[in-house]
Every structure is written in structure tokens, then in C-alpha cells.
């Protein structure tokens, strides 16, 4: 759980070289892999008739297009489900929450095989047109390369976590042609601190990704847009209102996404049937509404064109995309929530603009500003990375006015969603696994340490029928002041302190109920709070399931553990090189 103390630290210059070298290698690998993933998905989209440009070329055979529209996502879902079930040790797709967990607790990522299979099924899910995103798998792919650094013994503390951050930053930087956003994403979502030791290599890796995407391969920017800027001052207020609306949309989306999975699992027992059913739902919807297929790059572009969608059409599309994305991810398709979030958010922006400019007749600067603000407001609530989203807008549009408008939408959206839902989808997913970042990184780290690991050896126990002098003698011998009295099954009855009851035949009547009891699920953070006002030298720990006495922890040991962990975090967060 903590860094391996057996690693001896290398001299500073060597550490700088190791960090830079790692950043370059991981950045290059992650960037190339991200490009390869995008190309593979594009190839599949074309050959499986998911991409509009491929579909239209078979337009003379409408039955073929209709058949592939239904069959491709359904069979894709079936294969994805079967592969996860039979070939992947993790038996599920992996994503950013797994990366966050590994980095935060300096644990290895889930097995390489699970990771590669998850990436492969992501390519298939996206290629077959499931309503999922590409950035989650890309982030995980980048993290795999970073995670390989764990095997190295190069004398840099936390090298694996930093290298994972490098991989994630390079993947995002390559995907969006946005190196600054890549750096911020790695820090805001994955690393969650800004130590120079991590910041410098992550920046190097992010720039490496940008160089590969932009200079060597000359890939076009994901989302180029020309906009004249903001014409009216009151539009900032409109954009703030839009931020509140997309937050509501994002909360609905995330709740649905988290709820649909378990609900579906209860009704459909076989996992491959769940993904196949979700694929079938996508295919049937796409017959009438082809915009729901896949990542929706074309739809995203249409959202920036005035009047591309009618008001009814856009509402139907928003609902369909929310439900289908929640269904696909909940059912077990491999893929992220970010790209669909971009699309849904921009469509909500379009709807807002249609109402504001069409029905309310307010003069505006065009739909593009609202589409972008809605897109980023929604997406930032989902991934919990407001700074990253603001920077993505800035790097994609290179337009100051648009960025400021998007920033307003992002903060208002985050205000609501953080309060009503949580910092992000990832954090809520992690909280359901028992890792709670809602009160900060240090709290989560303390919560990951369990008091049962700090049991003191030699706690004195007694049975209720023992005479007090015997117990007192044992206590004196071991240097304890209280004995823990157990019944015949080893369950805790209370504590006994020698003194007033010495004349009694047995200690039974003199047993006091324990003032404070921990169990084997109690974590350090909770323990420290409950220790407030506690007087005594040790707290008994019992099994949460059987109630059996496991041992006792001393207050001093818990304080020492807390101080150690705080010092370790402080060191990590302030490390220079």
C-alpha cells in the first residue's frame, strides 16, 4: 500500500534523467498506441458500415445497411461479453477508476492480460458502433505503458504512479491535440497533486504525445471551429444558466448509468446477453436515428451549425443518447463516458440555444458557443475535471471568448453536480468500491488503512469466571491496565480494570462495557475521529461478522500510523525530483 521502502533512492541528477527518460518512452508509446486505437476504430467503423461515409456508399442496397445496423452492434456486444467472460481475468472492462486506484495507492494495475483484453474489446465496442467513448480506453491504454515502469528499480520513489500519469497525459494530449489539457487531466483526475517530481515528466510526456499527433503524423484537430466570439454581455448569464441545466442532465445520466448495470444484471444472468441486448437496442434505435451510433463525430459537428437540428429532434436525440450510453456502459461494453458526454452536452446546448433564440427571440452569437459550453459543462461534471475541460476548449478553439464562456458553464455545472452527485462519475464508482475521495486525497489514503493491521501483540484477555487477583497479576506482568473479557466463543463482553472489585470471587460483575470498539472494517480515518475524547490505552478490535475478539490497538500506534501516512503524502506531494 505504501512505497516499497527497500528501494534505495538514486542521486538527484540520475533521478532527473530517469524521470525524463521514462516520460519520453511512455509518452511515445502511449501516443502511438492512442493513434493506433483511433485508426483501428475508424477502420472497423468503415468496414462494419458504422461510419456515415461507409453507409452512404451502400445506399443502393437499403436492406444491407439495415441488417448491418442491427446485427453489427448486437454481435459486437455478444463477442465483447463472451471475451470478457471467458478470456479476461478481471471479467469486466477496465477504465479510469482502475487507473486512479492504482496510482493513488501505489498498487499494480489489474493484470496486463485483463488490460489488453479490455483495450481490444473497447476497439470492438467502438468499432461496432456501441454508444460508448474512446477516451476511457485510451487513458487505460496509456496507463498500461506507464504501469510497466513498476517493474523497474531505478531509485525514484513512486516512479510507477508518475509513469502512469505520463501515459495518461500523452494519451489525452494525442487524442485532443491538447498538450496542456493532457497535463492537467493527469494531475486533476489521476495524480491529484502537483509535485514537481510528477509535473515535470508528465509535461514532457504530454508534449511528446502532441509532437507525435501534430508534427509527425499531422493529424487534424479533433474539433476545429471558427467562431466570431461573444457579441452580447448577457450571453455569459445565459451560459451560466446552461451550466445549471447540463449539470442536471449529467446527474440524470450518471445516476442512470450506475443504476442500469445492476438492474440489468439482476434480470439477465448471462453477461454476454446483456451486452448483446444493449447492442440490439442501439441498432434498433439507429434505424430511425443513425446519430446514436458510435462516437458521433458528425453529430458533434452538426451541433455547431445553426439550425441543423429541429427542437423535437434534438430532445429525442438527447434522451436516446443518454439512455443508450447508460445502457451500453452498464451492460458491460468496453468504453468510456466522456465522448458521449461531449455529444449529449453539446446537444443540450443546441436545445438551449434553440429555445433562447428561437422561442424567446433573444439575439445571440450563434449556436456554436452554446454547443461548446454545454458540451464542456456536461463532460466536466462527468469526469470531474473542470480545469481540463476549460483547457481543452482553449486548445481546440484557440479562442479566448469561447473559452471564457465555456469556463462559466463548467463552473456552474460543477457547483451543482459536485453538491448533488459527487465530484465525478469515477469518484462515485470508486466510492462504491470503498475508496472515498470526496473529502480529499489524504482522507482516502487514511481510509484505505485498516486498524486491524495495527493490532498490538499480547493484549490481556480474561474469562468472566476468573478471580480478580489472577487477572490483575497477568495485567501487571504484561504491563497492561485493562483486560478484555471474552465469553466461551471468544466474543467480547467488556473490559475489566483491577481496583474496587478485588474482593469479589470472579470478575464477571465488575466488567464494564467497552467504551469504544473497532471492528476489522474500521479504517484509520474513522478510528482517528472516534478516538477523539477516548481515555484508555487500547481499543479492542472485533470481527464485524462473528463478533469475535481479534486483539487491541493502542492509541499511540494509531497516531503514529496517521503521522506516517501524512508524512508520506506530504513527501509525495512536495517532491522536487
Amino acid at each position, binding site marked *: 500500500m505504501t512505497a516499497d521502502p527497500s528501494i534505495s533512492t538514486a542521486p538527484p541528477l540520475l533521478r532527473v534523467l530517469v524521470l525524463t527518460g521514462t516520460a519520453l518512452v511512455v509518452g511515445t508509446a502511449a501516443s502511438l498506441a492512442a493513434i493506433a486505437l483511433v485508426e483501428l476504430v475508424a477502420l472497423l467503423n468503415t468496414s462494419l458500415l458504422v461510419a456515415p*461515409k461507409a453507409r452512404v456508399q451502400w445506399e443502393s442496397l437499403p436492406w444491407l445497411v439495415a441488417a448491418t445496423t442491427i446485427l453489427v452492434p448486437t454481435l459486437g456486444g455478444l463477442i465483447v461479453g463472451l471475451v470478457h467472460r471467458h478470456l479476461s481475468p478481471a471479467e469486466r472492462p477496465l477504465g479510469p477508476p482502475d487507473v486512479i486506484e492504482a496510482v493513488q495507492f501505489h498498487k499494480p494495475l489489474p493484470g496486463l492480460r485483463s488490460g489488453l483484453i479490455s483495450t481490444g474489446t473497447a476497439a470492438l465496442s467502438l468499432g461496432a458502433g456501441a454508444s460508448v467513448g474512446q477516451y476511457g480506453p485510451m487513458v487505460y491504454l496509456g496507463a498500461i505503458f506507464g504501469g510497466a515502469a513498476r517493474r523497474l528499480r531505478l531509485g525514484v520513489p513512486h516512479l510507477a504512479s508518475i509513469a502512469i500519469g505520463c501515459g495518461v497525459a500523452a494519451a489525452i494530449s494525442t487524442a485532443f491535440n491538447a498538450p496542456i489539457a493532457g497535463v492537467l487531466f493527469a494531475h486533476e483526475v489521476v495524480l491529484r497533486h502537483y509535485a514537481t517530481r510528477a509535473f515535470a515528466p508528465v509535461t514532457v510526456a504530454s508534449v511528446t504525445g502532441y509532437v507525435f499527433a501534430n508534427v509527425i503524423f499531422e493529424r487534424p484537430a479533433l474539433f476545429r471551429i471558427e467562431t466570431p466570439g461573444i457579441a452580447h454581455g448577457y450571453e455569459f448569464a445565459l451560459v451560466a444558466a446552461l451550466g445549471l441545466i447540463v449539470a442536471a442532465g449529467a446527474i440524470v445520466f450518471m445516476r442512470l448509468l450506475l443504476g442500469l448495470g445492476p438492474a440489468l444484471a439482476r434480470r439477465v444472468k448471462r453477461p454476454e446477453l446483456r451486452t448483446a441486448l444493449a447492442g440490439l437496442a442501439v441498432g434498433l434505435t439507429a434505424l430511425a436515428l443513425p446519430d446514436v451510433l458510435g462516437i458521433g463525430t458528425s453529430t458533434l459537428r*452538426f451541433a455547431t451549425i445553426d439550425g441543423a437540428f429541429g427542437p423535437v429532434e434534438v430532445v429525442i436525440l438527447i434522451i436516446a443518447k443518454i439512455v443508450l450510453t447508460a445502457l451500453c456502459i452498464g451492460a458491460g461494453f468496453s468504453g468510456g463516458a466522456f465522448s458521449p458526454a461531449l455529444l449529449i452536452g453539446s446537444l443540450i446546448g443546441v436545445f438551449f440555444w434553440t429555445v433562447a433564440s428561437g422561442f424567446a427571440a433573444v439575439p445571440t452569437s450563434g449556436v456554436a458557443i452554446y454547443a461548446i459550453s454545454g458540451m464542456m459543462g456536461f463532460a466536466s461534471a462527468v469526469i470531474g475535471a473542470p480545469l481540463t475541460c476549460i483547457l481543452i476548449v482553449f486548445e481546440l478553439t484557440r479562442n479566448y471568448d469561447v473559452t471564457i464562456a465555456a469556463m462559466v458553464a463548467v463552473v456552474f455545472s460543477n457547483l451543482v453536480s459536485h453538491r448533488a452527485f459527487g465530484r465525478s462519475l469515477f469518484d462515485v464508482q470508486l466510492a462504491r468500491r470503498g475508496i472515498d475521495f470526496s473529502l480529499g486525497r489524504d482522507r482516502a489514503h487514511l481510509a484505505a488503512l485498516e486498524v486491524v493491521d495495527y493490532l498490538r501483540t499480547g493484549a490481556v484477555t480474561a474469562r468472566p469466571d476468573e478471580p480478580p487477583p489472577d487477572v490483575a497479576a497477568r495485567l501487571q506482568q504484561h504491563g497492561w491496565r485493562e483486560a478484555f473479557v471474552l465469553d466461551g466463543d471468544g466474543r467480547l463482553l467488556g473490559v475489566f480494570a483491577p481496583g474496587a472489585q478485588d474482593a469479589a470471587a470472579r470478575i464477571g460483575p465488575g466488567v464494564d462495557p467497552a467504551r469504544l470498539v473497532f471492528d476489522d472494517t474500521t479504517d484509520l480515518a474513522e478510528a482517528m475521529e472516534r478516538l477523539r475524547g477516548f481515555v484508555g490505552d487500547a481499543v479492542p478490535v472485533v470481527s464485524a461478522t462473528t463478533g469475535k475478539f481479534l486483539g487491541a490497538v493502542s492509541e499511540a500506534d494509531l497516531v503514529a500510523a496517521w503521522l506516517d501516512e501524512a508524512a508520506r503524502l506530504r513527501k509525495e506531494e512536495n517532491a522536487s525530483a
Partner: protein
Amino acid sequence: MRLLELCLAWALCATPVAAEDLTIVSWGGAYEAAQRQAVIDPFAAQTGQKVDVTSYDGSWTALAERGPAEGWDVIDMLADQARVACARGLLLQLDPGALFSSEALADFTPVRPDRCSVPQNAYARVMAFDDRAFAGVKPTRIEDFFDTARFPGPRAVQLSPDGILEWALLAEGVPPEQVYGLLSTDRGLRLAFRKLDTIRDDIVWWQDPAEPARMLRDGRAVMAAGFNGRFFDVAQNGRVPIDIVWDGRVIGIEVWAIAATTDAPDAARAFITHATEAASMARLATRIPYGPTRRSAFDRIGLNPETGVPMRAYLPNAPQHGGRALVRDSAWYANTEDLRQRRFQTWLDAGR
């Protein structure tokens, strides 16, 4: 390259088929004349090969009907027509790796030789305007073609969906790399025709490619969509104040291909190798403003031998042009012909 030429010349002299006539098929007119001077005559002089030149209308159906009977060997085609002809087995399979070195293959731009054809020049569908019509501010962007408030007057447009749909989406702010993707959706087509609606009453239609330049000359239109070579010809030789807007140019690729029924495959290959050398491409481009399809050829392009005009500025794919450029997607064009025609006809009928 020198060594390769020598080898090829030797190979040609050594083979008996060299005695056969090589039939080259092109488009006639000023284009074919320039091709003779720049490419075909030098080849004949260099190799002693007897060459006939025939003209056709550029369609793959003509190749299927006339090719075998007339003994066609090498054909000048549009890339999308060549693609269809290739799929129908009308063209001889080429091995680009055997015809060109890997450096030469990497020199081709924007597309490389494929299994049936070798790119030879680039033409463009561009927007041109009559300079006399706009005394003050001149049109500079494709958006201006659709802006009848700032730039009033009739617009000459081909009676066909080719090119104009691309312009409609470019004018909506769609970046060139997404234009064909968006035109593939029903919504994209709807938006494109919505944009066309804004100039519906200002359109004068043309069908003969020579017509738009004449319309500008005669004042029948103030702006026109047409091919860059035609505008160049009228502007230079007719002394007409026509200016070309390079923004939004839709670049098409002209290729050389060999008929499947050829009786002189070796001579045909030798001709294609000769015709697609940088020097040959540059010679052609100084006579007619069709750009070379190899990067290294741009450095060799100088003055037009007759008028003395520096030609590099008039080539559609010259690197110095700014603005947006779109390379015509030949596969997409070949496979969406029916759909585009159908939607275009519906739009035309709706306006009647």
C-alpha cells in the same frame, strides 16, 4: 532516375512490341495539345516509339465500348472513373513498386499510384469572379459565394451536385476533412441544400465547362464555379479581368491507366513512367495550369513558353495558396453518384 530511363529505353529497343503503335487516349482541345508538346512528343523522340493520340469523353463506359476495338493502350482518366473501371476489370493491374522507386512513390502528393492508375496532374473546381463587378471589396472566401447581400449578382453553377455541395458545407464552417463525412448523412445533405436555397434565385446554370468563363466575360454572371484551367485560359488569352479565389478549391486528380485489352503493355508502362517523372509534369504545368502530383516537380515550374506568365501561381495545388482545399474523394464520388443526382433533382424540382 537517369539509370532507370536508360534501362527502360534499352528494354523498349530490345523488345519486338516496340514496333507496335502505342495508342494514347486523352480529352482533346488545349489540354491534349499541351500534353503532346510536354509529354507525348518528347517520349516518342526519346524512344523512337510510334504514338497515336485519340480523344474520348472521359467516361469509363467509353473505354468499355471503344477501347478493345480501337486498340487503346494508355488512357487519361479522372481518378473516380479509373476506380470504377478498375473494379470492373477494364484496366491492367499495375505494380507501383516495380514502376517506381520507394523515394519516387513517397514523392507523389496528395495520393500515390494504386493498383490500376498513376496520378499525373491535379485540376480544381474553383470560384472565380469578374473583377469589374466588385469595385471595392472583392470576394475572398467560399462564404462570399453564398453572400448575396455583400456580393450581389448572378452566380454561374454547373447543373450538377458536383462541387457545390462541398462548398455549401464549407460555407457553414465545416472543416474540409469532415465535409464528405457530413455529406454522407441525410442531415448533411439537408444543410447543404438549405445553403443552396439562399442563392437559388441568383444561380445561372451551365453544362459546358467552357461556359462559366464566358459568362463572366459577357457579364452574364459576376461569380462562377468552374475549372481553374478554363478561367486561366480566358483570363490570359482573352485579356478578361477574371480573378480566382483559391479558398474552397476542390482538387481532382487526373491519372494515367492502361487498358486491360492493350497489345503493348511494356510500351504503355514505359510511357507512364516517362509521363509521371517530375520533369514531364513540370513541362505540362508550364503549358496549362494543371498542377503536378509530385512534390519535386513544383521546383521546376517556370514561365509559360508562349505568354511568359509565371505558372506556379495558377496551379490549383501550388503550396503557396492559402485557404481551404478539399481533395475530391473519388471512391465516395463513384459510389454516391445516384444518391447525389436524386437529391439534386428533388431540390431542383422543389424550386419550380
